[in-house]
């Protein structure tokens, strides 16, 4: 099946006329914009623990979300039934905010562009690969992790795959569909030695199928990485507490950008002036070595999209250019209200949720420093290469993120591993502290899920090795 709207539409069993009538019913003169978002989503998960693939789950769901916006207001309703009657009830509910009787003229949906590109072409057969193949892969992961070191006492692994078909029809007369595959493999190892138990994790994926993990036996590398981190943490010492220079490794530590500045640059918070970045467009918010983009157009990436959930093609948006704040991430509602460009970042978790401006893949461009020199430049500090989650308070700009693999740097040398420590800083200040950027830009392995207003969407991050001159490290060793 190609990623075109006709195939998608056939799946929903809804006719053009029904769509145009429902749009007409909701798009009255006081409504600025309306859309119908149809979604079919099938997901499957198999998981292994104690050497047994003991759980398999599958979920199938479909439905439609109907939305109307008028000024700053949004009316929204959704239904898991797709009959004309259900569409109309949802349309009437969404229109409530407009205080108006139902529209009677259907809205012609004539602009049906083919996708300009397909960032994640796939073969349905790969996504519907037999559960047994996934079971085989998980069993091999268990064996590999235990072989890595006898101190590995338990291995947990899960393979999740999702196949989503979406179709959006808008009152602008646009109709576009996409098929969005998504897979993720996650491995967790627990190591034990003399009563000391430690955990290590590794995961990855993207808009890809099982073959991605099978190529070059990548899944075994996942097993070894998780085992390595768990074993390493057996010898970790207490993390230091206080302000110090921190070197972040490439890839997933880019979660710093996501938390520290990415959320603060989402247009909704800036329109409402509730972000610590409100009114800073054109101002210096980072050191000159920092250029940061959000790019939804990278092939096969977890955060990538052919089109966003409003039918806008995804794009590459420069957020910060050589330290200067250049742009916000937008959806249709906020771009219209703020009079700024549409960036293709209107995303929703499912038909059950409203569109919000969200990040796709957010990363810092490579700089000129040699990563080795960056480490060498630090007399006493922390080198953090892997992280758990992060969180930000948009309004005061304070963010945290927690290291899962980190080392002390002493006299320019990486020395002992340290236990997980939380780093805390202030979004509008932290990037001014970046003094060196490595030439080794790396994107993460494809594990990120971003939460906002209770909605989760897959995202990517990326970072070269960077040096932050001062940040508070929240260890226990004062």
């Amino acid at each position, binding site marked *: 099946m190609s990623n075109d709207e006709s195939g998608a539409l056939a799946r929903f069993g809804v006719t053009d006329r029904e769509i145009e009538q429902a749009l007409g019913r909701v798009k009255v003169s006081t409504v600025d914009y309306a859309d119908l978002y149809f979604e079919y989503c099938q997901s499957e998960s198999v998981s292994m623990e104690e050497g*047994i693939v*003991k*759980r*398999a*789950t*599958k*979920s*199938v769901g479909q*439905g439609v979300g109907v939305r109307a916006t008028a000024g700053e*207001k*949004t*009316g*929204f*309703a*959704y*239904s*898991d*039934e797709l009959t004309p009657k*259900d569409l109309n009830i*949802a349309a009437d509910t969404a229109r*409530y*905010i407009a205080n108006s009787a139902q529209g009677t003229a259907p809205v012609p949906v004539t602009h049906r562009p083919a996708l300009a590109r397909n960032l994640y072409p796939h073969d349905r057969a790969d996504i519907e690969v037999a*559960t047994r193949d996934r*079971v085989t892969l998980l069993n091999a992961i268990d064996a590999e992790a235990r072989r890595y070191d006898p101190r590995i006492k*338990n291995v*947990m692994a899960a393979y999740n795959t999702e196949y989503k078909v979406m179709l959006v029809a808008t009152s602008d007369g646009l109709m576009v569909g996409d098929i969005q595959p998504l897979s993720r493999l996650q491995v*967790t190892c*627990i190591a034990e030695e003399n009563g000391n*138990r*430690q*955990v290590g994790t590794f995961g990855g994926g993207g808009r890809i199928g099982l073959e991605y993990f099978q190529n070059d036996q990548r899944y075994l590398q996942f097993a070894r990485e998780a085992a390595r981190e768990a074993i390493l943490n057996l010898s970790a010492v207490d993390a230091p*507490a*206080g*302000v110090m220079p921190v070197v972040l490794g490439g890839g997933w530590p880019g979660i710093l950008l996501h938390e520290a500045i990415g959320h603060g640059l989402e247009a909704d918070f800036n329109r409402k*002036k*509730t972000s*610590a970045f409100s009114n800073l467009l054109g101002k210096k918010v980072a050191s000159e070595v920092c250029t940061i983009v959000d790019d939804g157009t990278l092939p096969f990436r977890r955060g990538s999209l052919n089109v966003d959930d409003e039918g806008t093609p995804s794009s590459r948006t420069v957020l910060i250019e050589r330290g200067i704040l250049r742009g916000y991430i937008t959806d249709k509602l906020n771009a219209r209200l703020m009079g700024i460009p549409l960036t293709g970042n209107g995303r929703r978790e499912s038909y*059950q949720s*409203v569109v919000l401006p969200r990040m796709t893949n957010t990363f810092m461009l490579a700089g000129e420093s040699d990563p080795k020199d960056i480490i060498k430049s630090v007399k006493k500090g922390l080198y953090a290469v892997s992280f758990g*989650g*992060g*969180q930000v*308070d948009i*309004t*005061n*700009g*304070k963010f*945290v*993120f*927690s290291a899962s693999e980190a080392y002390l740097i002493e006299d320019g040398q990486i020395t002992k591993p340290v*236990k*997980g*420590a*939380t780093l*805390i800083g202030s979004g509008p200040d932290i990037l001014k502290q970046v003094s060196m950027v490595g030439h080794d830009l790396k994107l993460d392995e494809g594990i990120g899920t971003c939460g906002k207003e209770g909605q989760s969407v897959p995202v990517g991050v990326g970072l070269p090795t960077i040096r932050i001159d001062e940040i*508070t490290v*929240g260890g*226990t*060793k*004062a």
Partner: protein
Amino acid sequence: MTRVIAEQDYTNIAQDLLARAAKHGATASDVMVADGETLSVQVRMGAVDRLTKAREKRLGLRVFFGQRSASASTSDFSRDSLERFVGETCALAQAVVEDPVSGLPEPGQFATDFPELNIHDSTKLQTDQQIDLALRAERAAFAADSRITNSEGGECDSSSGRIILANSHGFVGHYANSSFSLSVSPIASDAAGMQRDYWYGVNRAFAKLESPEAIGREATRRTVRKLGARKVSTCRVPVIFDPEVAGSLLSHLCSALSGYALYKGASFLIGQLGQQIAPDFVTIYDDGRMPGGLGTRPFDGEGLPTRKQAMVERGRLASYILDTYSGKKLGLPSTGNAARSIGESPSAGPTNFYMVPGTTSPEDILASVKQGLYVTDLIGFGINMVTGDYSRGASGFWIENGELAYPVEEITIAGNLKQMYANIETIGTDLVFRGRIASPTVKLAEMTLAGS
């Protein structure tokens, strides 16, 4: 949006699925059906911002083929789809490996009494009524202090739902519940910047929801007091957790007591059953039948009766949180704590989980600290459940001579949960349920604070 389906129809669908699964060769199975409706109103700066209305339904099927099992869920209840759905679920079960511990609970263990638990209030709010409540809460927040200059808005939600659980041992149970909530999140500003906080009320009975005026005023009180927050120096000091954040310490305890974390070796409380994990004035209950409770239900996700049980009794760890599977792995009976998402196999989770109040007022707890930290907000995920290592971003107030001296932010507090529970020094008298997990004010003897 979906036409209302009678409870009996859902029971019939459930029975039909059990019969079909048996026909496909399943040796046992259970079905959970849930439906619900929600009306959510968000207002901002005195006008409607977002209105969401929905009615949804979903069913989950779990099948066993001997000791192999799989679970699946769907929102498509049409006859043809369900036949295909049962077939696919059965095929999935046959693809996994045998797990000797798997299975339904034994017949005879299932809930047989279904007392009135006051978890369903049939009040139907009109859209305009909810808009009015949210607007009033936001207006009250603005009126309470002139430094409130902006708002992330007010929200009023109402929802009701039904759960039906049936299994091949003949258990059939159902219950309905409801929830009403009201919240507001004002933003205060001064020359130094902006601060945001929020306050909320949530209740199963509409009549018991706090007034919008009270919620608005409290939100503003919590917000403006954060203005002018600064960092403090790295140090080791006593830390007081206000009831909201003290609840998070109990959430972590729940995670560590989950049978699944324990048998996987992923909890820092392995092997601690019967041991002293906190001082003898600490007692913690889980009560699945607390009338009107947000975690209350007559039976758990496997159909076993819920109950009130001591989890920590005078500081001694009295019980884990178990369902049938995780209990068997640990050689213990289920504690009636099976949590269930539709279409998933059960996990183990708390119902209404709370710390019994102490005898010291929150004011006296504050007065007992010469220099220390009073925490009101925690952010981040810096908790390692395997080791108990704890490091989170915090904000709150610096305590000087028993009084809140000034607001602080951009600091972390760190320690190890095992030691933190052991270091509980005082428990407040101020227990209020605003969720399924509740705690009074708690004072810990000492933690590491990282700041400037």
